[in-house]
């Protein structure tokens, strides 16, 4: 798949809560095929402390509007600057990068997201539903105000939430949710903080369910040139950007 570097036009910025926002950006040429799990690397302007691009998961693709949606958490100055972009602004993007989640057919699938790691799961849920799968999305957040975009997930299946403070859904971490014992899943997909993904991987391994995780290693280029984002696999160091970000847990040394 050919990688591109292009200017996109900002269509809108939706604030989800005080930390997270979704940026819809419109391609000036027809979008290429983009797979769930892939990411973009965006150029941040006017930030003295942001030297490198910022890799961001693709949250959603709307081919009718020719847009990509990016789910972003304000962490440092770079992501804060992205949170100041307005309609009509330009965003330079290198994409589509990385591999993709596997899409089974007619299976019972579980998607587990935590924090900013929910980013790639919405587009994945769409593809899974279109392939005839039953989709359950389980989001782990801190409290009710972080449980956002639930209606969007509902379009593609069930949506379940855990909150750390118990203000919404079940109290606790996603790996403590009752659905994990109640229901039998055929595939598990996860993205989020590493401790959460490791707990999801342990659950999947114990139940003997295939499990794919998306890693967020820091990187410079995003297309296999810098060799900075490696993760240890059973076949040696692999670049998260080109051979990931999605890995089957059996291939990782977790």
């Amino acid at each position, binding site marked *: 798949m050919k990688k591109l570097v292009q200017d996109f036009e900002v269509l809108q910025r939706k604030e989800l809560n005080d930390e997270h926002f979704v940026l819809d950006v419109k391609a000036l040429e027809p979008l290429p095929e983009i797979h769930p799990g892939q990411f973009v690397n965006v150029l941040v302007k006017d930030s003295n402390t942001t*030297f490198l691009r910022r890799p961001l998961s693709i949250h959603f693709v709307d081919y009718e509007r020719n847009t990509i949606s990016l789910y972003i958490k304000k962490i440092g100055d770079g992501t804060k600057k992205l949170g100041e972009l307005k309609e009509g602004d330009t965003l330079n993007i290198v994409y589509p990068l990385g591999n993709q989640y596997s899409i089974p057919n007619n299976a019972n699938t579980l998607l587990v997201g935590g924090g900013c790691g929910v980013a790639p799961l919405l587009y994945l849920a769409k593809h899974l539903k279109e392939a005839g799968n039953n989709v359950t999305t389980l989001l782990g957040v801190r409290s009710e105000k972080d449980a956002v975009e639930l209606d969007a997930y509902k379009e593609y299946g069930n949506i379940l939430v855990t909150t750390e403070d118990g203000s919404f859904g079940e109290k606790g971490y996603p790996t403590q949710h009752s659905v994990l014992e109640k229901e039998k899943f055929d595939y598990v997909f996860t993205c989020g903080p590493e401790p959460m993904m490791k707990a999801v991987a342990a659950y999947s391994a114990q139940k003997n369910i295939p499990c794919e995780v998306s890693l967020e290693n820091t990187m410079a280029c995003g297309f296999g040139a810098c060799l900075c984002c490696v993760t240890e696999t059973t076949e040696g160091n692999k670049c998260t950007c080109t051979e990931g970000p999605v890995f089957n847990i059996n291939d990782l040394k977790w």
Partner: protein
Amino acid sequence: MVNLGVKLKDLSLKNPVMTASGTFGFGEEFEDFIDLSNLGGIIVKGTTRHHREGNPYPRMAETPSGMLNAVGLQNKGVENFCKEIYPRIKHYDTNILVNVSGSVIEDYVETAAMINELEHIPAIELNISCPNVKEGGMAFGTSCASAASVVKAVREVYKKHLMVKLSPNVTDITEIAKAVEAEGADSVSLINTLLGMAIDAETRKPLLSTVTGGLSGPAVKPVALRMVWQVFNAVNIPIVGLGGIMNAKDAIEFILAGATAIQIGTANFIDPQVTEKVVVGIEDYMKRHNVQDINDLIGALPIQ
């Protein structure tokens, strides 16, 4: 038409823009973004006698106007390069240089001898300046005696253009440059990364698995420019300048300081099309300043 062609002794470049080793993969990673034939040369990933896994993650930290890396020469070894990679890239219509590194002199010699047999590789860049390996690497490039000994040994087996990449982590880079010139180096490239370090105050941990790493990007440009100018005034062989070049203006500055050619490194990560833009930008600069031949700009710094 302005002339952009330069010569590093016997090695002709269609323009002075090359890519820095370790920032450009094997060229293939950039084929989607640019036409490689528009470049003066590409210097592929550092290659060693044997396979190296490199250092553990994390290997990179962003810093003000730059980045630290501690990749540690991850590569599959010279035999893999000759058998698997070379056949895929040998058709590129540009100069392909292999960056050769090692832990002991014998490794450098064996690797260089094998690359010497590859018809479409007209030169090697001898890396005596990698700061991210425990043995060898930069250790060879930080004393005149060891720099001279490795260049002398490689010169005996390597018959084509021998470029030697110098470390900035020395007291006087001109002494090292003179030492490698005396042993038969055809050109020198400088600078490799500056040894640096980053700490996360919140977690009180180093940001790199190796604690220290190599600093690159615009943060090092003034240091690199100074060293190119010093070496230009100390040796007679051509100089390839690098260190934080982000655009054509930066490239022109290195040429004015004495570089015959330049390499673009870290900037490739931020704009994968930057190399082509620099070629065009140099040409625009020459037209704007009414310079017919790029060679007229090399070292053309009037110093009172």
